[in-house]
């Protein structure tokens, strides 16, 4: 994001787990810091970006699929495989990757696991803590831990792989991933609803879950400001202006199922119920063909791109109760107004909110003309305290990295952080693995 700049003088691109192990052994002996790097798509500068002059270890050359079982759907691949390439590899067998995110064309599966990436399919297929079956990891001293199991059940001792999922490369380097892939849905539909008020999001979410039950695969929220940014930067095709009128909130609902007729019957029933109550929904659009399906997704998926076209963004990826989504955005805007920084020259242009209702994950983006200490001081620790007041998480899916290490204590107790430090010490007593990230 251009906020941090490393000064590393060396990038290594190992081709095998053995090579990674040899590099780590060497660095361990000489106490050289190492930063593992995947597709460089992270948002908190966790992997990839060195703090000082650490060696960058780029896994891009480890990009082979090791095995795929078309019966169980278990996929074993090198950590440097690009997510989209894996999707294409398993598609002919009728499977899809259990995670999907905007950066799919360049992010690596190893990086996804190391950061416990969330994304658009989490509501349906759960987090990587559930779908990852096993990992191959090189520890800071060069030891190779091979746990590339393809078993779904394995209750033998501590489940060590879980420690590496979301550790952001601070405990070791993930070199191989075994992951369970779900069958490809035979029928997908989506629709966008323009709501009369934010208060309607939860009643509609409840109805959606009740009516669409097992075929519901995404329930996404975006506020009017986010929608307007996408339309302004021509990244999505707008809905009819006279129909949406002053709708302050939008939701996108996606269904994936195995039988088109069955899914459509369910959708019809759901729509009739939602549309019959005029206080709930102003209008909506149901995709009639694949092109429209993609156009509707673009309205939601293009928000990050629209935000970066609008200006410099302060991005907060937080977990808070869904009922507070709107008020968190409003309070942040009020705070900036109080400080005289909202829509003033050199100040903040817009505050937008969007996210995954299904997972209680809100993306709060503050778009400014330029990064400034004043804005940062107005936002931090304000936003973190706001999140803490709702017992939320200051990083729902982007991780902690370098950018948010100082704020970890807003979401984790002193005791928890102390235990994390002990664990870090067990794996890496010399402190060479991705120094400065997650734990200060």
């Amino acid at each position, binding site marked *: 994001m251009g906020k941090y700049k490393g000064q590393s003088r060396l990038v290594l691109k190992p081709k095998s787990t053995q090579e990674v192990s040899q590099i780590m052994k060497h660095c361990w002996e000489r106490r050289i810091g190492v930063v593992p790097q995947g597709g460089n798509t992270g948002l908190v500068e966790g992997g990839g970006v060195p703090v000082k002059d650490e060696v960058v270890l780029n896994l891009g050359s480890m990009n082979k699929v090791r095995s795929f079982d078309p019966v169980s759907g278990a996929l074993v691949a090198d950590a440097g495989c690009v997510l989209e390439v894996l999707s294409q590899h398993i598609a002919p067998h009728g499977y899809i990757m259990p995670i999907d995110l905007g950066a799919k064309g360049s992010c690596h599966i190893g990086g996804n696991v190391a950061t416990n990436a969330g994304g658009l399919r989490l509501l349906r297929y759960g987090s990587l803590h559930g779908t990852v079956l096993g990992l191959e990891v090189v520890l800071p001293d060069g030891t190779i831990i091979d746990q590339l199991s393809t078993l779904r059940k394995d209750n033998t001792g501590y489940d060590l792989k879980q420690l590496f999922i979301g550790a952001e490369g601070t405990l070791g380097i993930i070199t191989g991933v075994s992951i369970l892939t779900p069958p490809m849905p035979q*029928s997908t539909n989506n*629709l966008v*609803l323009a709501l009369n008020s934010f208060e309607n999001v939860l009643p509609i979410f409840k109805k959606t879950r009740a009516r669409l039950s097992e075929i519901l695969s995404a329930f996404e929220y975006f506020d009017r400001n986010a929608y307007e940014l996408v339309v302004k930067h021509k990244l999505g*095709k707008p*809905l*009819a202006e006279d*129909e949406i009128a002053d709708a302050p909130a939008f939701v996108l609902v996606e269904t994936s199922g195995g039988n*088109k007729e069955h899914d459509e019957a369910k959708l019809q029933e759901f*729509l*009739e119920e939602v*549309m019959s109550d005029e206080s709930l*929904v102003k*209008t*909506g*659009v*149901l995709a*009639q*063909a*694949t*092109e*429209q399906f*993609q*156009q*509707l997704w673009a309205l939601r998926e293009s928000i990050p791109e629209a935000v970066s076209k609008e200006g410099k963004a302060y991005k907060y990826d937080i977990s808070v109760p869904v009922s507070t989504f709107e008020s968190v955005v409003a309070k942040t805007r009020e705070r900036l107004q109080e400080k005289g920084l909202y829509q003033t020259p050199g100040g903040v242009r817009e505050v937008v909110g969007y996210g995954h209702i299904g997972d209680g994950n809100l993306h709060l983006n503050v778009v400014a003309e330029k990064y400034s200490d004043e804005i940062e001081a107005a936002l931090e620790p304000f936003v973190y305290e706001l999140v803490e007041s709702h017992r939320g998480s200051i990083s729902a899916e982007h991780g902690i990295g370098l950018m948010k290490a100082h704020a970890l204590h807003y979401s984790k107790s002193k005791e928890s952080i102390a235990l994390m430090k002990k664990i870090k010490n067990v794996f890496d007593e010399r402190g060479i693995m991705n120094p400065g990230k997650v734990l200060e």
Partner: protein
Amino acid sequence: MRPSSARLLNILVPIKRSIDYAVKIRVNPQQTGVETNVKHSMNPFDEIGVEEAVRLREKLKDAVKNITVVTIGPTKANEMLRTALAMGADKGIHIEIPETLSPEPLGVAKALKEVVNKEKPDLVILGKQAIDDDAGQTGQMLAGLMGWSQATFASKVEVDEPRGVVTVTREVDGGLQKVECKLPAIVTTDLRLNEPRYTSLPNIMKAKKKPIEKLSAEELGVDLRPRLETVKVTEPPKRKGGAKVESVDELVAKLKEAGVA
């Protein structure tokens, strides 16, 4: 010729249910055709036709009396009519045929001729082609059978309703051509004519109450059976990847080998 003063326009838009443009086409194992158990939607050029009819009404208001959409297809083609009705058409006609039957342009044009004689539209807007067979003949054949004016590959359509003419800008090789046709006329749509709207939920609900008339080929007295026999369908040969050559000599040798130079 009909009287030209203060008339009301009737528009007919034929639409086809075809394989969705985003679906990867696969040849069936029997090599008799392509896999049809995939997502279908309205032929994109026909969708442009429906959109244009609705826009003409938005522009000419009450001068457009009726927009009728017609499809020839299996039971499921009904969904395409519902989509068109949700976009703003008033009435649907479904000429139902078995899923296995795939009529050819001449058969379709003959059936449409009967529908035109029955519905008496002043303007028929068709897609310039369907993206499944890519024949691109139906509009022209219908114009021939009716003895009407035709303007194909339209990128702009303007109706001067008191004068009873339609002015169509056509996309031709090397530029744009403007033609004026006396109504009744046949227009076929090109990609740049318009961008079809979303079908909004309130309109989808309203469309459920709009009438769809069912007709059969027998009732219309037309034979939709194809005249051509498909012998075999195969996939195009896989593209071979390129390779780097070390020198100009090698390049020339390779070109000679390939019979290029």
